[in-house]
C-alpha cells in the first residue's frame, strides 16, 4: 500500500492533527521521563541541579520536536530516509576524523548548542532507510540473495564505523535492530539461521583469538567480558560497577529503602549513578515494586507501538514503528540486563531516564516518526 492510495479526506490536516496523535503513547513516554526526573533529583541528593533541571528542559524540547515531527506527513519522512541515512553515515565518518573523545572513545560531535552522538542517530536513520527499502522492494524479491545482501551492506557500513570508535555495544544494537527489520519484513528464515550460526562461530573466534596476533577485540573489551563472567575476581577494579550495582539492586527488596534513602547511591558506591546505572538507584529506593512498574510502562510503550503498527496498513509506517519499538526495547532491555549482571557492561543508557541530551533527543525524534506514522495512517 502506497501513500498515493490515501484518501486525503480522512486524513486530518493542519493543527487538527494534534488531536490524532497517539496520546496514550505520549503519556507513557512522559511518565517514563518523570520517573527519570525523580531519580535524577534523588541521586543529586534532593536537588534539581545538576541533572534533573536540564533533563526536564531537554524533555520539553524533545516533546515539542516529537509533536512537530508527528505532524509532518509520513511520506515526507519516507522520501528523505535515504538522505538521512547518508548524512548520518557522513557524520559517523566525521566523528572518526574530528570527534571529541569521551571515556576513551570518539563518539561526539560538538554542534555548539549540544553534543551530537551520530551513532545514536544512526539507530533511527538505519531503521528509516531499511523500512523505506522494504517498502520500495517488491515483496516477492525480498528473499533473493542479492536483495538480501544489499540491506546487510546497509547495516554493516555504519556498524563498522561505530566499531571504529570503538563502541561495541551500539554496533551490536545496530546489527540487532537492522536484522530485526529484515526479519519483520519477511526475509526467509534460513538467512537468520545462517547468521545466528555464523554469529556463534564469531564469538568462538573472538575468544580463541585472545592474546594472539589476530586478536579481534580490544583488551578492555575482553576485560569487560571477564568481569561479567566473574565480577568478584576484581571487586575494586573492573568488577566494581557490577558488584556495587547488584548490591544496590538486591538490597532494595520488595519496596526499597525509600525515596532518597538509598545508601548505595547516596554514598557514591554506585558508579555512573545518574547515567547508565540509574536503574539501580530506582531499584534500591523503590524496590521490586518500583522496578517492575518502570518495566511495565516500558512494556506498554512497546505494546502501543506494536498495536499502532499492526493497525497501520502502510508498509513503511508499520516497519518504521516496529523498528523503532525494537530499538527502544533493545535500549532498556540491554541496560537492565547490564545492571542486573546478565550481560557485560556496555555503555547503553536507560531510555528517557538516564541523564543525557543526545539519547533523549534522538529517542523523541524517533517517537515523532511513530506519531507521524500514526497520524497519517491510511484510513
Amino acid at each position, binding site marked *: 500500500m502506497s501513500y498515493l492510495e490515501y484518501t486525503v479526506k480522512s486524513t486530518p490536516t493542519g493543527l487538527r492533527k494534534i488531536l490524532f496523535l497517539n496520546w496514550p503513547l505520549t503519556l507513557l513516554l512522559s511518565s517514563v521521563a518523570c520517573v527519570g526526573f525523580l531519580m535524577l533529583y534523588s541521586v543529586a541528593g534532593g536537588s534539581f541541579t545538576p541533572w534533573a533541571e536540564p533533563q526536564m528542559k531537554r524533555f520539553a524540547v524533545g516533546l515539542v520536536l516529537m509533536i512537530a515531527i508527528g505532524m509532518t506527513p509520513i511520506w515526507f519522512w519516507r522520501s528523505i530516509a535515504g538522505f538521512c541515512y547518508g548524512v548520518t553515515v557522513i557524520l559517523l565518518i566525521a566523528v572518526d576524523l574530528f570527534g571529541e573523545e569521551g571515556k576513551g572513545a570518539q563518539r561526539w560531535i560538538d554542534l555548539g548548542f549540544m553534543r551530537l552522538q551520530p551513532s545514536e542517530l544512526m539507530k533511527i536513520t538505519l531503521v528509516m532507510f531499511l523500512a523505506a527499502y522494504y517498502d520500495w522492494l517488491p515483496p516477492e524479491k525480498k528473499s533473493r540473495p542479492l536483495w538480501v545482501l544489499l540491506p546487510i551492506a546497509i547495516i554493516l557500513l555504519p556498524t563498522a564505523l561505530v566499531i571504529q570508535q570503538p563502541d561495541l555495544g551500539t554496533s551490536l544494537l545496530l546489527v540487532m535492530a537492522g536484522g530485526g527489520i529484515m*526479519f519483520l519484513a519477511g526475509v526467509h528464515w534460513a538467512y537468520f539461521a545462517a547468521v545466528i550460526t555464523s554469529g556463534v562461530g564469531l564469538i568462538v573466534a573472538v575468544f580463541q583469538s585472545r592474546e594472539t596476533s589476530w586478536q579481534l577485540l580490544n583488551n578492555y573489551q575482553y576485560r569487560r567480558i571477564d568481569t561479567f563472567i566473574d565480577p568478584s575476581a576484581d571487586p575494586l577494579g573492573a568488577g566494581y560497577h557490577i558488584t556495587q550495582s547488584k548490591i544496590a539492586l538486591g538490597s532494595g527488596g520488595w519496596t526499597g529503602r525509600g525515596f532518597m534513602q538509598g*545508601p548505595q547511591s547516596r554514598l557514591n558506591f554506585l558508579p555512573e549513578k545518574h547515567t547508565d546505572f540509574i536503574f539501580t538507584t530506582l531499584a534500591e529506593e523503590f524496590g521490586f515494586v518500583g522496578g517492575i512498574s518502570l518495566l511495565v510502562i516500558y512494556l506498554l510503550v512497546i505494546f502501543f507501538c506494536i498495536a499502532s503498527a499492526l493497525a497501520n496498513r502502510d508498509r513503511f509506517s508499520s516497519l518504521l514503528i516496529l523498528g523503532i519499538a*525494537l530499538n527502544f526495547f533493545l535500549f532498556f532491555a540491554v541496560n537492565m540486563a547490564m545492571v542486573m549482571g546478565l550481560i557485560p557492561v556496555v555503555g547503553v543508557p536507560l531510555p528517557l531516564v538516564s541523564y543525557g541530551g543526545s539519547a533523549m533527543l534522538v529517542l523523541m525524534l524517533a517517537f515523532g516518526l511513530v506519531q507521524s506514522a500514526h497520524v497519517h495512517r491510511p484510513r
Partner: protein
Amino acid sequence: MSRRALVVGGLQFVLVGGLAARMRHLQINEADQFRTLAEENRIKFKLIPPARGEVFDRNGVQLAQNVPNYQIKMVREDTRDVEAVIARLSQIIDLDGEAIERAVALIKRSAPFHPITITDDVTWEDISRVSVNAPALPGVTPEVGLSRVYPLGSDFAHILGYVGPVSDYDLKKIDDPDPLLRIPRFQIGKVGVEAKEEIRLRGSAGSKQVEVNAAGREMRELGRREGRPGANIQLTIDAELQNYLQARLDGESASAVVIDCETGDLVAIGSAPTYDPNLFVSGISVADYRELTENKFRPLASKAVQGTYPPGSTFKMITAMAALEEGIIGPDDTVRCNGHLEVADRKFHCWKRSGHGSVDLKNSLKRSCDVYYYDLALKVGIEKISAMANVFGLGVRHNVEMSAVARGLTPTKAWKNRVHGKDWVIGDTVNASIGQGDMLASPLQLAVMTARLATGREVTPRLVKSVDGVEQASGAGAPLKVDQNNLKKMRQAMFAVVNDRGGTANKSRITVDNMRMAGKTGTSQVRNISAAERRTGVVRNEDLPWERRDHALFVDFAPADNPKYAVAVIVEHGGGGSTAAAPIARDITLQALYDGPPPLEAYPSKDRGRIRSQQKRLAKMRPMAKTQDDDKA
C-alpha cells in the same frame, strides 16, 4: 508481516519477563544477602581509644598527663596510589624523609584498612592545611590524639617509666591482645608504673559505628559505645621530697629509698643518674639511646629496686637478731675482738686491724666490729640468719609497681648446693654474717628492713596510694613474730651508732632532740682483698679505679623514739658508708621530717656552714622547690 510482528513482539514480552524474573531473584530471593553487603559497604566500626589514666603524687601533683597532639594518618585502601599522595602531602607540610620511608613501609605491610600514622608531631597550622587540601589527599585524615607528658621529667623516670608506641614484640608477649593494641602507634607503658599498671591506666576502648561513603569518608555517626577511660593513679611518692632526693643524689651513681614506717608508703625512691622519660614517648633517637645505654653509671636502671648489693654492715642487725632470738647471746654478753677470727685455718679480719677489744651488742654495732658478728654467726648458723633476713624483708620480692624489682639473695646451704653444686663451708657463714659474700639486697629491701626494725611490724612497701580515688591497702603490717625486747635493744644500738661519741655515723647525727636519728653504716667490698694486698697493706679506696671501690651504704630511721621514716642510701663505689652514704641519708631524712628544707639547727654546729652552702646549691637546682620561707609564711 503481522505474524512476524507478533513473533518479535512475543519475543520482547518473553525477554521482559526474563528481566522481571531476574529482578525478582535479586530483590526478593537474595535481598537479605545483598542487604548485608550494602550494610558492610557503608558501615564501619571504629575504635575510640580511651584517655589514659593520669598519675599524681600523694599531694595531687601531676606526674603523668595527657596533652593533645596532632597526627596525620593514612588509610591505604582509600588512597590507592600511596606514593603520589605522600608526595603531594610533603609539598603541603614538612615531612622528614626518614619518617616518610618508615610510614610507607608500614603502610605496605599493614592491612589496607588500617590507618597508619604518618607523623604525630605536626602543628595546628599543618592540620588545617591538610584539611583544606583534603580532596587532593584521598585517604589522608588529620586527627587529634593524646600524648603522654611527664611534667617532672627525670625525677620520676625510674618510678613511672614511660609509654611508647606498641611494638610487635609487645604484641607477641600478650596472648589475647586488646584490639586497642592493634591501633598503630598506640601508646602503652613500657617500664615502671606505666607498664605495671598498664591495664588500669589504659582503660577500655569505646567503639563507634560510622557510615562512610565510597571514598571512606565518615558521613555520620550511627551509634557509639563509650569506652572506659583509664584509672587515675595516685602514688605514695611525695614529689617535693622526690625532687630533693634526686637533686641530692645528683652527681653520684647512687640510689635512695624513703619509706613511711607507719604505713609502708614509699615517699621517695631515687636513683642517679637518671634520664628524661619524655624522650621515649614518641620514640627516642638512636644517639640519645646509645648515650644512655653506654653510660657506665647506668642511668636507665632503677638502682633503688633493681640494684642488689652486698648489704655489708647494715646486715649486722639481722645476724644479731638471729642470735638474740635463738637465745645464744644476751645483749650484754661480750665477745673479744683481736682484729681477726681464725675459722677453719683461715683468718677473717675485722675492718679494724688492731681490734675492738671486748665488745657487747651495743658497742659492736656502734663501732661496727666484725669479729663480734663472726662469732655470733658461727654459733647460730646460716639457716637461722637467712630466715631472720627473710623476716625483715630481705631475699623477698616486694610487690612494688616498678620494673624488675629485685629479689636479692639470702643464701642457705641448699641454695649453694643447688646453684653452685658445692657444699656450704663455714667461711661462707662468716662472710654472710657481715652482709658480704653471697648476701645481696636492694636499697628498697634495706629500707623495708629498717622500717621493720624501727616499728616491730611487718611493714610492706606501698607505691600506689589510690586508684580512681579508692585507697589501696595500707602496708602497716602485723607485729613481727620476734621478741619486742630484742628489737628494742637493736634500736638502742642503732641509736648509739649515730648519737654516741665513737659511733660510726656520729658525724651525721641530727641535733634536734625529738628528731634524733638511729641508723647503721655499711661498707661493702666489691673486691677480694688479696694476700699480696694484706702484706703490703690494703690500698686506700680513693686510689682504686671507680669500679673496684667499695659501695657505701647507710640505713636509718627517725625520729628514733617515734619512728616516722626509714631511709636507705647506697652510693655505688662511694667508699665508706659513714662518709659517703650517711650524710646523704641524714639530709634526706631531715628533708622528709621537716617536709621541706630543715633548719640549720638540726645539724651539728660545725657542719652548718657547709650545709648552708649545700642547701643554696640544691635550691638553685630546684627552682620550684619549697623554701623555709614558705613554711614560715
